[in-house]
């Protein structure tokens, strides 16, 4: 048996060597990794307006530079829960996961205003709970701030083939296109994922078999998440009404 002193010294040297080399590697790769993550998230947001990208491109066709350029062109207001724009903050600096931990009244909401061929799209971020962990998504509204132009979802740990279909199966997100979040008389209804198939063609989409809890999570997330944006949407509508 080795002496305790030897064991302690051996462990100390080993861990110090490992710690130093790993820190070095992390520092060397940090910048590029952060850029990769940033572009990955931006591509996800752009997927919500996939059908309206310049020259009919798809998100996968865009180079990293084009993605960054599109984001540089966007207006990126951040709004508070009363719908007022917070000055000096850009939407892309908002971390939805952190915002969700704050009390409701203090949350900040990112808005990406995407413009193509004179049409405006408001990309809103939503976040909620699936079956196992958090789910999130982006919903793009057309300039009437009612009709959905596209939506995209992602998740942390939903079951592959079941709940994970909200991300993996493009036809799930595609169903949201053209749905409306308001009743024709102006009441807020959001979009519901209906088990057994949509009945209301304007406000419901088909559920996923075997993923009822995740689907309910999507409904709940959209209902709450889009409701947070109501004061902002009302203000934008008022402004455009005054301008006309």
């Amino acid at each position, binding site marked *: *048996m*080795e002496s305790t002193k*030897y*064991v302690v010294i*051996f*462990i100390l040297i*080993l*861990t110090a060597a*490992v710690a130093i*080399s*790993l820190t070095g*590697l*992390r520092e060397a*790769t940090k910048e*590029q*990794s952060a850029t*990769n*993550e940033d*572009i*990955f998230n931006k591509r996800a947001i752009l997927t919500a307006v996939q059908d309206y990208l310049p020259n009919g491109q798809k998100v996968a066709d865009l180079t990293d530079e084009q993605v960054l350029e599109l984001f540089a062109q966007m207006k990126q207001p951040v709004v508070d829960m009363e719908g007022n724009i917070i000055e000096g903050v850009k939407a892309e600096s908002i971390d939805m996961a952190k915002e969700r931990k704050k009390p409701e009244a203090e949350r900040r909401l990112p808005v990406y205003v995407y413009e193509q061929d004179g049409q405006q799209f408001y990309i809103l971020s939503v976040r909620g709970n699936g079956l196992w962990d958090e789910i999130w998504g982006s919903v793009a509204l057309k300039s009437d701030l009612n009709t959905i132009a596209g939506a995209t979802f992602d998740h942390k*740990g939903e*079951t*592959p*083939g*079941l709940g994970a279909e909200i991300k993996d199966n493009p036809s799930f997100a595609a169903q949201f296109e053209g749905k409306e979040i308001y009743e024709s008389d102006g009441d807020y209804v959001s979009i519901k994922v209906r088990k057994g198939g949509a009945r209301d063609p304007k406000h419901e989409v088909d559920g996923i078999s075997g993923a009822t809890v995740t689907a309910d999570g999507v409904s709940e997330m959209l209902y709450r998440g889009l409701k947070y944006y109501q004061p902002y949407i009302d203000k934008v509508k008022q402004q455009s009404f005054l301008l006309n």
Partner: protein
Amino acid sequence: MAETAVKEKESVFQFGKKERKLLTDPLNDNNPITVQVLGICSALAVTSLVYPSLVMAIAVIFVTAFSSLFTSLLRNYIPKSVRMIVQLVIIASLVTVVELTLKYLNYPVYKQLSVYIGLIITNCIVMGRLEAFSMANKPWRSFLDGVGNGLGYGVILVAVGVVRELFGKGSLFAGSPIELKIIGPTADYLVNTTDSMLFGWYANNNLMVLPASAMFIIGIMIWIQRSYNTKLVDVS
């Protein structure tokens, strides 16, 4: 006396019959998945697509190879009382290297594999080889043993991935630059089931997407392997 005189001086990196066996044995006779039934958890979880399986296989080969090498280099200095902790430190740091590198090179695949990369640490194959082989063998042979076992794991992983993706999604290598769309309901696919007279009945098997299917596939693989490699059959 004469024998010792003619005995060749062994080079550090010699590659003879024994060394070749270290590489090929885990591919068949001593496969970590189908014979030792180790590392099943990740084999069930990551194999729904070929590309992540391939990345996972490469990651595990890297970790088994280099953890074996480092453990073997240190084997005479590692205090016996804390040897497991030392092995874990080596494995964990190599896994962190894999994680950082993947994040740097291919972020989407990193996102897809994130949890499972971390779980390489708990993959029994890695620690099993360190305990059983590297602690008692020279560095070069340990390295080969690590590569061999990683390969044995990777081959099964990719094979399961091919079956699952082909029958579950109708594609191969989805998510990579060389995606092949083989059979599916749109014109993008090689065999378009909506137009085809022959394959109009075909639909993807959703069971293949679920981890449970990997268990059936691995079970069938064990069956096939044992039916031609009869020395694996337990006669008792």
